[in-house]
């Protein structure tokens, strides 16, 4: 079928200037990595609202990857610092609510770190693969699915 080898589903929220470009570099360097990640390009990690992550899980993501410029490298001066502060609060909240920490991964990948991008994607894909489908979230998603 169409969905061969597409599990787990992973959504990545990345910034345009570092991680997206880093992924471009992985491409130009012809580095191979696992195909599960679907990337959504944003101008800056500062643009990443925690509701994106929640929505991704609601839409059936088994893992969410968040990545942007290293501290100090932000194209917009401080977007990643603000993002980092939000993430600190957010990832601790998710952990407390019982969302397995290994399903949400934060990383800094610069435009020159094609190799790191590949490593991050592969390691995270393997981790989520090992965890299997996100059953807990699937359960709350499945309430009131088509029963007609």
């Amino acid at each position, binding site marked *: 079928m169409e969905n061969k080898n597409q599990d787990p589903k992973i959504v990545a929220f990345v910034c345009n200037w570092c991680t997206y470009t880093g992924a471009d570099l992985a491409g130009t360097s012809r580095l191979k990595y696992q195909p599960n990640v679907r990337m959504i390009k944003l101008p800056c990690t500062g643009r990443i609202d925690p509701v994106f992550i929640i929505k991704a899980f609601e839409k059936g993501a088994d893992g969410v990857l968040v990545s942007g410029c290293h501290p100090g490298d932000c194209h917009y001066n401080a977007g990643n610092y603000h993002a980092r502060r939000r993430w600190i609060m957010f990832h601790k909240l998710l952990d407390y609510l019982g969302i397995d920490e290994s399903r949400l991964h934060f990383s800094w990948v610069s435009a020159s770190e094609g190799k790191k991008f590949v490593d991050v994607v592969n390691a995270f894909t393997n981790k989520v693969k090992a965890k299997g489908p996100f059953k807990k979230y699937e359960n709350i998603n499945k309430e*009131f699915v*088509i029963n*007609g």
Partner: protein
Amino acid sequence: MEEKIISKENLLKLCSDLLKNNVDIVTPGEKGYIKIKNESEISLNSKSKHTKASFKEYVFPKSEPIIYYKKNQSDVEIIEPKVEEKTTVIFGAKPCDVRSISILSKIFNWDYKDEFFNVRSRNTVLIGMMCEYADEFCFCTSVNLSPTSSDGSDVFLVPHDENTFGVKIVTEKGADLLKPYENYLSAGNSEKTKAIEASVKQPEKVFDAEKVRQWISGNFENDYWNSIGKMCLGCAQCAFVCPVCHCFDIVDEDYNYYEGRRMKNWDGCQFDMFTKHASGHNPRDDQSKRYRQRISHKFKYYPDKFEEILCTGCGRCSRGCPVTIDIKGIVTEINELAIK
């Protein structure tokens, strides 16, 4: 109306049998009306305080899908959900709560027949129980109900003592439910029941609903509404815990890229969003107007249309109000304004 007696022991057996026969039993519990798994959870206490929320959600769920849809390139396929036909017994509800179903039936069968509600209410058997609780927020007598009223119940229980209950079989539906379990019942003692009912302390009647209705008719712009609107925080817990508030909102939710559902969700008239138009205009743009709507709907518009007061006097809305806005007090004040 036939009357019987049942011992506590047999009552539990009855419940146990019902559960075995795949009947859902809902009963007032610590945390509201709950669906029980075991007969020992059943509530037999006529002196208990009202649960925070009513059992409304068992006939009118807080959220339910009313349509499923599937999109393809140019077309949308609609799938209608089916409500399961399954008997639910609401056991030990107070007379004020029991009354809610018949009040709600009117709106849900007025021009459009709401099948979601009707299937559920058709399959619901109401076993009411006399109420011996009355606090400062109770006012069932003022809305023409009483703690001993079996009106609306299919079966009505009156505790004779700790271990015996008088059983009034009020409707056919009630009789049908009990028929297989006749051997648990013994001959009734209506004299005792009457005596006990007579001894129950009734909340004082504090207003005349008709006077209130008339006052509201002429006082749409009265300054009185402002004094309440100022204090109200605009939360809708009052509507959500109310046994007869029935407003709902309809929203579409996508399930995935191609599929989704249309949900019917409880709504409350105290929300700013409740009447907000797509244009941005809001006819009820402050809390006074919204609170006026709440009182007017309950004590004028609904009575005008259905000859029923949209209130059972249970006092839930006031007991739980974070800023203690007391509907009983307000309507009493309106009553006084009406007399003046």
